[in-house]
């Protein structure tokens, strides 16, 4: 029976209170509901967050089993250059796999998940990693700004050892023009909220859930948790009432703690539901965006075996408030910042070199000497151990999932950075290997020699003249 084998999520460290936004640009709009949004750091985007959620999902699993990767997003950095293939490379997954980007609608998260179930049920792949991630750019002062949050979810779909079986689905599709963004545009357009709420949100979700109940002869009371996006607080409650669901059955929408994470939203809610699930629980999930998909699951006994995931809960509690709206604008490149002439220097990414070195650059793979056992990054042909020096006796060795400690560090005010000082240093990896990395998601004052760190996949630069979003790995304090 196909189902979910593992789950993971990612919520960026920064949170911005709605008040911060209102204080800065409140004159442009109405007072937002209380709460805060998860805000991606300046070097994060939908792609990097999908990798982070994927790492959480695959922790404790063998990566070799994964033979498919589906990405769902509406904020993919690349229009051409498959984002899912880049994520698969970053996760050091095999090349023999199916990859696909599901884009264009916030419904894409559930659609990607449905497609993964279909693919596995059709025995075209065995284990598909589904990542749903959104980091949407909203126009300063727009209603979306305090509504949208950044986050990602990841689910491993397979047919054995599942923690929740996929029991069925029901979908509706409408060309509902609530929000749209044409090719080449930076920001979304939106029609009036009352139209979105009354003609879309409050129609499609009841329709799709009722359709599902009818199709499988179920009662709404059968479900332990019901998860659907909470774009409108009052509308969210009204739908439950209309369906006859108790408030206790409703999965928290994360709207006041993370924000509306678009494609990721229903999957993040599903992950959060799975974190609390017990064997036998039934979970219903529905999306919203140009219609809706509803899916339902039954939790198996294997749910008890899932351990060590950060998922939604741990990420929610690991946060730092971003108190400066101006800094947020700088992070999103929405205010032109002077990095000095030093910061204007860039080289065009040599794409052939990037492809050749993709395991080193994107997957943080080095080598391990078969003769002396020394791990080394980047990949070396001649062993770096001065007492060994063996030539071509290497095997691949992945550092991205190794922890390490700070060997030394600095906070550099001269280096061009959107968030100075630029903190970087040398990391000694547990099990061997040393290299220098940028440090991120940390404050200079908290960094110490010997501090434990882990690796995180981040956007390294955006070369606007070359149209390149470059990625590599950075070190960060271990996120509790």
């Amino acid at each position, binding site marked *: 029976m196909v189902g979910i084998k593992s789950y993971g999520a990612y919520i960026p460290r920064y949170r911005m209170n709605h008040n911060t936004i209102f204080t800065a640009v409140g004159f442009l709009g109405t007072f937002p509901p209380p709460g805060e949004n998860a805000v991606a750091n300046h070097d994060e985007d939908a792609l990097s967050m999908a990798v982070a959620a994927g790492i959480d999902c695959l922790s404790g699993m063998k990566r070799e089993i994964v033979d498919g990767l589906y990405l769902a997003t509406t904020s993919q950095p690349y229009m051409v250059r498959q984002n899912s293939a880049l994520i698969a490379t970053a996760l050091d997954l095999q090349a023999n796999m199916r990859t696909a980007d599901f884009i264009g609608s916030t419904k894409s998260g559930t659609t990607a998940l449905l497609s993964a179930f279909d693919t596995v049920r059709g025995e075209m792949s065995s284990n598909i990693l589904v990542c749903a991630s959104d980091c949407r750019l909203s126009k300063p002062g727009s209603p979306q700004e305090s509504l949208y949050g950044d986050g990602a979810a990841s689910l491993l779909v397979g047919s054995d050892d599942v923690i929740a079986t996929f029991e069925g689905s029901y979908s509706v599709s409408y060309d509902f023009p609530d929000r749209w963004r044409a090719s080449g545009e930076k920001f979304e357009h939106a029609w009036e909220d009352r139209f979105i709420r009354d003609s879309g949100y409050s129609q499609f979700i009841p329709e799709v859930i009722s359709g599902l109940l009818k199709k499988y002869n179920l009662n709404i009371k059968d479900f332990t948790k019901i998860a659907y996006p909470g774009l409108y607080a009052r509308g969210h409650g009204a739908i439950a009432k209309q369906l006859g669901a108790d408030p206790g059955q409703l999965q928290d929408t994360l709207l006041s703690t993370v924000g509306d994470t678009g494609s990721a939203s229903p999957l993040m809610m599903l992950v959060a539901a799975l974190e609390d699930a017990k064997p036998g629980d039934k979970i219903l999930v529905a999306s919203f965006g140009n219609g809706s998909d509803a899916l339902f699951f039954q939790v198996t006994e294997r749910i008890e075996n899932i351990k060590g995931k950060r998922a939604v809960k741990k990420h929610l509690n690991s946060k730092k408030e971003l108190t400066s709206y101006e800094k947020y604008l700088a992070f999103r490149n929405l205010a032109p910042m002077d990095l000095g002439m030093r910061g204007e*220097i860039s080289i065009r990414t040599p794409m052939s070199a990037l492809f050749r070195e993709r395991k080193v650059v994107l997957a943080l793979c080095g080598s391990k000497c078969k003769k002396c056992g020394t791990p080394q*990054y980047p990949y070396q042909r001649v062993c770096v151990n001065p007492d060994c020096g063996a030539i071509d006796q290497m095997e691949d060795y992945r550092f991205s999932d190794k922890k390490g400690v700070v060997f030394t560090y600095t906070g550099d005010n001269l*280096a061009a950075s959107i968030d100075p000082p630029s903190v970087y240093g040398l990391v000694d990896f547990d099990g061997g290997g040393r290299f220098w990395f940028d440090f991120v998601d940390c404050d200079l004052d908290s960094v110490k020699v010997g501090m434990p760190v882990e690796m995180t996949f981040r956007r390294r630069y955006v070369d606007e003249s070359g149209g390149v979003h470059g990625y590599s790995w950075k070190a960060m304090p271990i996120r509790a």
Partner: protein
Amino acid sequence: MAEGIKDKVAIIGMGCTKFGELWDKSADDLMVDAYKECIEDAGIEKKDINAAWFGVHFEEQSVGKGATSLALALKLPFIPVTRTENFCATATEAFRGACYGVASGAYDIALALGVEKLKDTGYGGLPGNPGLMGTKNALIMPKLTAPGAFAMLATRYFSVYGLSPEEGKRMLAKVSAKSHYNGARNPKAHLRREVTEEQIINAPIIAWPLGLFDCCGVSDGAAAAIVTRADMAKKFRPDPVYVKTLQIALSSGEELMYTKWDGAHVETGYRAGMLAYKEAGIKNPREEISMAEVHDCFSITEAVTMEDLQFSPRGKVKEDIEAGRFNLDGPQPIQPDGGLKCFGHPIGASGLRMLYEMYKQLQGKAQLPERQIKNPRLGLTHNMGGFPAMNIVSVAIIGL
């Protein structure tokens, strides 16, 4: 067993421009200025020069590739000119090439000239260059700046030897204060003002824990030397200065990628020193080396170099600094000319600028009597290019 270079080559003339933010001087002007002083000092003419070695690092910043710019600036008459580039050891590499050229017997007289015109970038600090460490590194290395890279050496030194940031910064402040004292007395230096330890400690942070005065200046300059075979030297002047050793050592990668290096010293510095002492026949550098110009791109670099070159025992440089050992009037003056700290660091010129100071001191010709070190016998120069975890170090010793 190789014989080495000891006493086979002599310096018979040197020149050095004033260093500084020379807005009205081009690289060509600097080359001509250094060359002019150099041949006048040697008492030779252009036709006597058989070959030249030319050091410049950021060629894209000023002179372009190759060695033609030197040949054209000096109107060298169709003789061999070779360009050298090896990070901050660039000028010392030019000097090494010239010395090997005459020592081999291929030439009688050779010119080494190093130049760097840095102040045409439009911003402070060294020119940024994402391709500095090659294509692969550009994709995976942090965007290090020089202050940041050496700040990591300070962080590590403080950690390994248990210095609080306050103790560490105080130690480093003494290093810079000493160099500013010397530079203030040198008409060719760029920064000619004495600064107090308090000013140094309270200066803005460039890269934690290094502040403004822990960093050397960025300036324009050129320096040059004329060398000949030792047996010919006395024909040109009564007081030639002899080359005792020329060594360089480069990182093997084990500092950056293997986990044995302690990060509180520069391995290449120690290795190049050992090679140099062997070639020069020096047993006790702390006692035998009269004075030195070392690569004080940052205060921490000088402090650590004192240990790498065995002037101070490991972890003990603080005691020597506090005792004033390296002051102009101390037993082993370091940076008598003010160092990179006060001259700034036009990369391609610095190694020859250091040799110029040692050469003049050995001849008893420091410009002002108060700058003259009493009866020096051996002077050492040291350059370190790159970053503490991945670099090149050169060591040269010259003497009477």
